[in-house]
């Protein structure tokens, strides 16, 4: 017992140190791309590719952390949160492209519209439980993307249709750096919100709902209002990421604003890092996104797959990802953070115990 506590603390400290170093590097490296630094001959630590990957990672931190509020803390397995990402992207995109609003004026509407939409569909959806909720929310994700692409108004596609929506190119100085820091700010907000939720009366109510909804209700938790609020909060954060994405990417369509695979990726990230925790989803997002980029061959450190042609490579990467998903679910169901540091130690017996707990 004591030993576990000690090792627990040691792991926690190691985790904080590693996390601190990564955060410091991620926050400071972009500065080397500024003109002042370049002219002072500071080595360039962040090129275009760096910004692209790092901004994606921050974006997934927002989505995984947002999903955690409804999926991890409240226990409702939402499988369609990409709808909120897309709605955020299209809200900001439409305001900029059609109403000619400036980006920063349009951005706040992304989380607001996404949250309103979540509250609206959440009222019927959150009456469902278990599989029913999961698949119904998956349906929302699919259906919203389809509607956005196909809705016509006066004979014209309302949201740009199948050819997508082009935003005017902005004239933001140090573009890569700007959107990176903006996405990091969104990630910080989502982590701070989670931290607050877990300490608040609201958060206790959500956890009570997750553990036993009926018991929570008879103890006075307004379960409907709480669930809808959690869903809307998750949607707001995810929508914020979408809103930033739309101007960052300048072009949005059904494929990049409503990618079905994001639904599962954000869940897998939360699961990898540990659901229901403050930093877990963020850690999982960094790990999984780096892995996806690595397998896809976009990272500077690359590798050759034996017997695999260049064209087959993305396919093999997907297979590896699928096998990884299967492996994580079977062997480390409580997340890698728990696997490495939590209540137990990194060991074969941990894997065996995980198996015993869930298998026949």
């Amino acid at each position, binding site marked *: 017992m004591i030993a576990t506590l000690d090792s627990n603390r040691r792991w926690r400290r190691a985790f904080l140190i590693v996390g601190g170093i990564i955060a410091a590097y991620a926050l400071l490296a972009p500065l080397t791309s500024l003109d002042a630094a370049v002219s002072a001959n500071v080595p360039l630590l962040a090129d275009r590719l760096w910004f692209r990957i790092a901004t994606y990672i921050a974006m997934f931190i927002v989505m995984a952390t947002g999903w955690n509020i409804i*999926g991890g803390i409240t226990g409702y*397995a939402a*499988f369609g949160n990409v709808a909120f990402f897309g709605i955020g992207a299209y809200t900001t995109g439409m305001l900029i492209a059609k109403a000619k609003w400036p980006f920063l004026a349009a951005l706040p509407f992304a989380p607001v519209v996404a949250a309103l939409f979540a509250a609206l569909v959440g009222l*019927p*959806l959150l*009456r*469902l439980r*278990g*599989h*029913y909720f*999961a*698949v*119904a929310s*998956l*349906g*929302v994700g*699919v*259906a919203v993307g*389809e*509607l956005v*692409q*196909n809705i*016509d108004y006066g004979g014209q596609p309302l949201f740009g249709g199948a050819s997508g929506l082009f935003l005017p190119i902005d004239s933001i100085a140090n573009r890569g750096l700007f959107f990176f820091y903006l996405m990091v700010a969104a990630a910080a907000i989502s982590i701070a919100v989670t931290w607050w939720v877990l300490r608040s009366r609201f958060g206790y109510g959500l956890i009570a709902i997750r553990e036993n909804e009926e018991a929570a209700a008879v103890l006075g938790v307004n379960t409907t209002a709480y669930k809808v609020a959690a869903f809307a909060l998750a949607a707001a954060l995810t929508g914020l990421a979408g809103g930033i994405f739309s101007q960052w990417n300048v072009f949005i369509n059904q494929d990049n604003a409503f990618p079905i695979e994001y639904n*599962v990726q954000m*869940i*897998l990230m939360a*699961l990898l890092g540990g659901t229901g925790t403050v930093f877990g989803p963020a850690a999982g997002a960094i790990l999984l996104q780096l892995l996806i980029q690595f397998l896809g061959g976009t990272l500077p450190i690359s590798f050759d797959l034996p017997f695999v042609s260049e064209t*087959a490579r993305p*396919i*093999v990467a*997907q*297979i590896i*990802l*699928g*096998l*990884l*998903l*299967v492996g*994580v*679910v*079977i062997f480390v*169901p409580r997340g890698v953070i728990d696997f490495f540091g939590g209540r137990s130690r990194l060991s074969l017996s941990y894997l065996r115990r995980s*198996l015993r*707990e*869930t*298998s*026949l």
Partner: protein
Amino acid sequence: MANFVQLVILGLLAGGVYVAVGVGFGLVWGVLNIVNLAHGGLVIVGGYITWQLFTALHLDPFLTLPVNAVALFVLGYALQRGVINRIIRAPLLFTFLLTFGLNLVIINILLLIFGSDFRSVTPTYSGQGLEFGSVVIPYVSLTSLGAALLLAAALAFILNRTRIGLAINAIAADRDAAQLVGIDLRHAYAVTFGLGAACAGVAGGLIAMIQAITPTAGEPYTLQAFVVVILGGLGRVSATVVGGLAFGLVEAFGQSIPGSGSVFANAIAFGLMVLVLVTRPQGLMGRLR
């Protein structure tokens, strides 16, 4: 009027495929409590087997269906025994992610083998049909509907008349009690998933005859299978048959609405699902349990 009759007939014929897709999905869901996101992947594996046998050996596509069933049964049995049984007691999120991962693996292996080209199965009689005045009934659809109903009947027979079927029913009713009377859970679960996969394989064969397939063409069928099962009510093969035919009708009439076309297929399916879930959670045919 003829138009209405045509729509009803088309809907029921299309419903055959949904019956085939739904029964296996419903069986796995009802007994194993798993919403199998790899169902669409298994369906399309069946589609490729039919395509391969048809193009390489010139077999009649309907004759390939038993091959699909056997092959997919073996695959399903192995998947359940080797992988899914290991997390059968985990929360639903895990079974979701696991089956999603399996789907990803299946689809991408198919992509490696067959590429992403469209493949279609066109026997000599495709495009022909029975004509009653202005109403046309394509042979392929008619035979597909027959095959789907036969499949459902065979599944119902296995579940209600055979030893293993009764064991599966016992497990669905009460897992612990079933174990106490000596049922080998691992085997029975694997057989259940195998049967579900076999149904998916047959459905895939039927689908390959009515549309060109790619490795990802099975995706929409997972969501649709879910809607079909909900529509009919979880727990009985006959209810899924009704759900599948009803879904075919809804789709036929939905697509006939001018302007909407087929682009809103998912939105219609989803809207219908939420409507049924919220107003009649036990399904059209189900009893409240």
